[in-house]
């Protein structure tokens, strides 16, 4: 049983001549939660996208299990689940079809129905995603992450648009994920409810 860990060294990102962020370094191992905080426009989303490998950083390295993520032997993406501002739901498909479209992981039926039950989604499964409300769309997207069985969850403002019960359930699920040795990186605005992080990066100061 390997211990997963993520090491970020001196990450920096420039767009044209504007600095988005620089000198970001941290270490994350199993069961740990990193919170990236900061006001709007301080580059939280950009940082998450760099950590996921969607954006190529101007400088710095991302190391997963002692292998740089651009190394061909590094199976970083097999362990990574990312949810950004965009919920990645295809409006022309129903909620159920959108969920089935995540073709990874062989989760149990019980688990699936309990997650959907807790989010109160069961009634809406056969509606087209374009007919769902923002909160419901967010819940479908989040259930996709919860059911993904990946080690590292990277969530951009996970509780945005969620109602109280949904938030409670999500926080509990995130805690359970950490307890099972999962890893978690989230961003949040200061007034969001969130779990207590093991470490925090505040982009306001950087």
């Amino acid at each position: 049983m390997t211990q997963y860990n993520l090491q970020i060294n001196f990450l920096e990102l420039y767009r044209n001549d504007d600095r988005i962020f620089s000198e970001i370094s941290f270490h994350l191992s199993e069961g740990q939660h990193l919170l990236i905080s900061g006001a709007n426009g301080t580059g939280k989303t950009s940082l998450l996208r760099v950590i996921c490998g969607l954006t190529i950083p101007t400088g710095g390295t991302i190391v997963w299990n002692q292998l740089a993520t651009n190394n061909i032997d590094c199976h970083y993406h097999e362990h990574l689940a990312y949810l950004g501002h965009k919920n990645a739901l295809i409006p022309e498909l129903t909620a159920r079809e959108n969920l089935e479209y995540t073709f990874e992981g062989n989760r149990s039926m019980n688990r699936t129905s309990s997650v959907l039950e807790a989010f109160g989604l069961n009634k809406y499964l056969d509606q087209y995603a374009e007919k769902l409300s923002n909160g419901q769309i967010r819940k479908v997207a989040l259930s996709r992450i919860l059911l993904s069985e990946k080690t590292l969850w990277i969530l951009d403002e996970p509780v945005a648009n969620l109602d109280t019960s949904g938030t409670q359930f999500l926080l509990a699920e995130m805690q359970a994920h950490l307890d099972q040795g999962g890893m978690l990186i989230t961003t949040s605005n200061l007034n969001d409810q969130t779990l207590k992080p093991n470490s925090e990066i505040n982009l306001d100061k950087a």
Partner: protein
Amino acid sequence: MMKVLRIIFLKDLKVSLRRWSDLLTSFILFVLVCLIFPLTLGNDPSLLLKIIGPVMLVAALLATLLAMQNIFRPDVLNGSLEQLTLNTYPLTLIICTKIFSFWAITSLPLILISGFIASSYYVTGNSILIVILTLLLSTPSLVHISALAAALTVAIRYPGALMALIIIPLSLPIMIFGAKAIEFSISGIDASAPLYFLLGMMFFTCSLGPVVTAAAIKISID
């Protein structure tokens, strides 16, 4: 692996069918471009037989151009394409599947109707089959080239003209040989040479196109 690609293929077919108005527009464009020539030139059979090759190819190019603007754009906007790039499966194969499903849904109707349009241009006998075969061999290349242009311009707000500027020079060989194949068969010459060329181009674009398109997608959603 094959199962995953089949899921993507079927899902793309389903989504495209639910966006049927887009597809209908490009199909109608194809038919209208083909119809406008007889209507404006008059129905002189010798003239129409002369122009059917280029008209068919240009109409197919325009229809492909129109349809392909939307191959990646909606998925980029709703974020599902970036989830596909984060997948463990090779993006090249996913893109290839996507392009193939798009081809099936946008180009197959054109190929099916091309026989009727050819006969309205007074094309007879074997030449109708050659017209259909030409479109069958040239549309995959056109779709792959357009997919590359669409991937490069996916982050641009109004990509239409720029896509045309990229696609038309690159697809010139296909246009030339496609038009020639039709012209040859109508004038009774053996059309196999240009058809072999089209087949070669089809293999060339289908094998290398998705690799470049996948790279372009990764750059565009950066």
